[in-house]
């Protein structure tokens, strides 16, 4: 009888080992899957925090929270359902070890003690078949395959963080300028240039606010967007809510210098930002520009990137503005060919500026804005019976304009006569951009 008891104890001990092994495996599996879901959700939230508006992010964050809670609860229920007790472990061992329900029968015999003359035979048979139901045979894996899922999601998260921290620098940043300024000033730049700029800007973390694709989904984070002032003035809720704070925290984590509600990608800004404080006058000028741009928006004209970002770029210390301006001027010189639109003096783009030669003089001590004296094409509009020369027209070398088909639809008369366009003080960093745009031919 002692031998039987010993045999049963041995069987039970092995079953306990098997049960422990199976449960650990179940726990690992559930944990890895839950963690994978959490990491995946975090990755998506990071991306959402950097790309979408606060409102969208709030929806995504709460939705992600609910889904995460559901996943956690589901994981608990799943683990509970998969939790293995001794009888289940016996059934599993019977099945995988082809023991013909011997273990389940013995476990039931122990649970419901009764007279069983054949129990010793059963124990003996189970022990004789011991090699079939070794725990390592029944549950060969110590680590579930779901670990690979977790690793994959962690790699995704790491890649996301890396790309967010190290945005890919556009190979030809100056090529985005035409599209940028075309958007800003309402000049129809070639669509290919705009698309190119968008394609280059988007992967880099969206810094190129000039790209239409990138700007379109930036929502309130878009500089000069109509919703931004509203959010600042009265719409504090998105930023004070939990998702808003989370989004700001994420954005600050990736760009400590960025303003609270501006996505870091909007600022290409890691290149030029350095003085996040800015000056009051700068902020004022930015606000004025925004106001002017808002006026333009009423007429459906896309507005230039302005606001604090532009003023901060002016005060950049990490990347001196002079260098950027020089690069832009070089690019402008490369793209400047022949006749320019009816701006400046003939084909000389220098005439665009109120202060000739302001570009080279720009520096830390230089003027912060320049006066846009785009009066030559407006002058034509003042002459009765003549439509003003405007961007979008193909200009001959002698300055005679030839209206391109559909060019009239570009700017209405009201827009053309908008005083804000003529009177606005445009930040100095736009000098090169504006100069290049007005030196572009319509077919470029």
């Amino acid at each position: 009888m002692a031998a039987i008891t010993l045999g049963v104890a041995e069987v039970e001990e092995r079953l306990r080992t098997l049960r422990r092994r199976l449960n650990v495996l179940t726990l690992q599996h559930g944990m890895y899957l839950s963690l994978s879901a959490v990491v995946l959700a975090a990755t998506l939230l990071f991306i959402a925090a950097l790309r979408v508006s606060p409102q969208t992010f709030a929806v995504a964050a709460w939705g992600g929270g609910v889904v995460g809670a559901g996943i956690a609860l589901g994981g608990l229920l799943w683990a509970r359902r998969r939790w293995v007790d001794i009888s289940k472990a016996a059934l599993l061992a019977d099945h995988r070890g082809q023991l013909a329900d011997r273990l389940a029968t013995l476990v039931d015999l122990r649970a419901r003690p009764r007279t069983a003359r054949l129990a010793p035979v059963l124990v003996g048979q189970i022990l004789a078949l011991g090699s079939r139901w070794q725990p390592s045979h029944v549950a060969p894996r110590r680590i579930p395959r779901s670990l690979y899922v977790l690793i994959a999601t962690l790699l995704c998260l790491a890649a996301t963080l890396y790309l967010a921290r190290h945005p890919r620098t556009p190979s030809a940043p100056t090529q985005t300028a035409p599209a940028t300024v075309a958007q800003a000033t309402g000049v129809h730049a070639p669509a290919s240039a705009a698309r190119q700029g968008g394609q280059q800007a988007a992967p880099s973390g969206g810094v190129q606010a000039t790209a239409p694709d990138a700007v379109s989904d930036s929502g309130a984070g878009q500089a000069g967007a109509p919703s931004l002032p509203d959010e600042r003035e009265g719409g504090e809720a998105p930023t004070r809510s939990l998702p808003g704070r989370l989004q700001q925290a994420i954005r600050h984590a990736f760009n400590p210098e960025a303003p609270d509600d501006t996505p870091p990608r909007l600022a290409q800004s890691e290149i030029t930002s350095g003085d996040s404080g800015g000056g009051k006058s700068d902020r004022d000028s930015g606000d004025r520009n925004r106001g002017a741009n808002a006026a333009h928006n009423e007429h459906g004209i896309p507005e230039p990137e302005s606001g604090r970002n532009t003023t901060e770029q002016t005060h950049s210390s990490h990347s001196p503005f002079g260098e950027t301006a020089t690069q832009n001027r070089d690019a402008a010189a490369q793209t400047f060919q022949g006749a320019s639109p009816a701006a400046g003096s003939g084909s000389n783009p220098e005439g665009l500026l109120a202060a000739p030669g302001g570009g080279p003089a720009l520096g830390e001590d230089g003027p912060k804005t320049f006066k846009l004296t785009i009066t030559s094409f407006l002058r034509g509009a003042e002459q009765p019976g003549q439509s003003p020369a405007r961007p979008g027209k193909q200009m001959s070398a002698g300055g005679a304009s030839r209206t391109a088909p559909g060019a009239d639809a570009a700017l209405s008369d009201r827009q053309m006569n908008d005083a804000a366009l003529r009177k606005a003080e445009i930040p100095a960093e736009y000098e090169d951009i504006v100069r290049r745009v007005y030196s572009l031919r319509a077919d470029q």
Partner: protein
Amino acid sequence: MSADTPQRAVQDFQRVFEQLCEQLHAVIVGHREMLDNILIAFFAGGHVLIEGVPGTGKTLIVRTLAEALNLSFSRIQFTVDLMPADITGTRMVADQDGRREFTFVPGPVFSHVLLADEINRATPKTQAALLEAMAELQVTVAGTTYQLEPPFFVLATLNPIEMEGTYPLPEAQLDRFFFKVVLTYPDHGDMRRIIGTTTGAGLPHGKPIFAREAAPARVEALRALVRDVLVAPHLEEYAAAVVRATMPADSKFTPPGATLLAVDESVTRYVSFGSSPRGGQALLLGAKVRALLDGRVNITYNDIDQVAIPALNHRLVLNFAAVAEGIDPRYLVERVLHGAKRLRR
């Protein structure tokens, strides 16, 4: 040759069964599965109903089994005018020491192995005389109860051809048979062997494997061993679910409540009454014998499935639609077993 340890008892059971099979197959040609089922029912303590055409060796099987086990054997040819006393025995006036007294003369039921040939030819009253003997191992004559000596094994035959003037067995009596097996005509090879071996000079006979005195005790010991076979709870659930699934869903005798196994549509359509709990008992006991034959002391799903058809097919009472469409109850049991596969864990 008793088995003093459980392991040796199991081995002894296997050996006895093999020897019986050898003896039976030495006399009976073919019908291997049917013979196995008869032996399973015998060791499970049940009775067997054989349905078969004449001349297929039904009587020979029972006689050979009795000879091999060295047990007493009786045969009753059931006819319309057969009376219950012809089965159970009767009290007769006998002269004892100058006094005349009623003395009980045992009928053919007082034997170990009883062949009730063409049982459906007797009247229900006579058929019912077997009920008490089969179920209770006792008979009551003139108010006196007489115990039958175990082991008691009834093997009844049904002739499905000549149905005129027959009395189909009532369901209550059918339910008392552990198994019902169908004896078919032998195939060509078996037919050739049958006519070859039975037309020679010496007819084959089974050799007893037990001594006459020890045979009843040995058989009872083996039957007790069968009941010691262990059953896991999930297999009890499985057997109960199979039996429950033979009950039509719309019958007023079907118990309410959820079932582990959904009732098959064909069962509801063709079955008037499903199996009784005796069907479940037959499932488990038959499965236990199967397990012992396999050297195991516990049953499995396959053991239950293998005995399900002989254990349940005669317990399903089919309705008129089934009779009209020629539905075989074995087909319905197979449908039930097919649906029960999803219960396996």
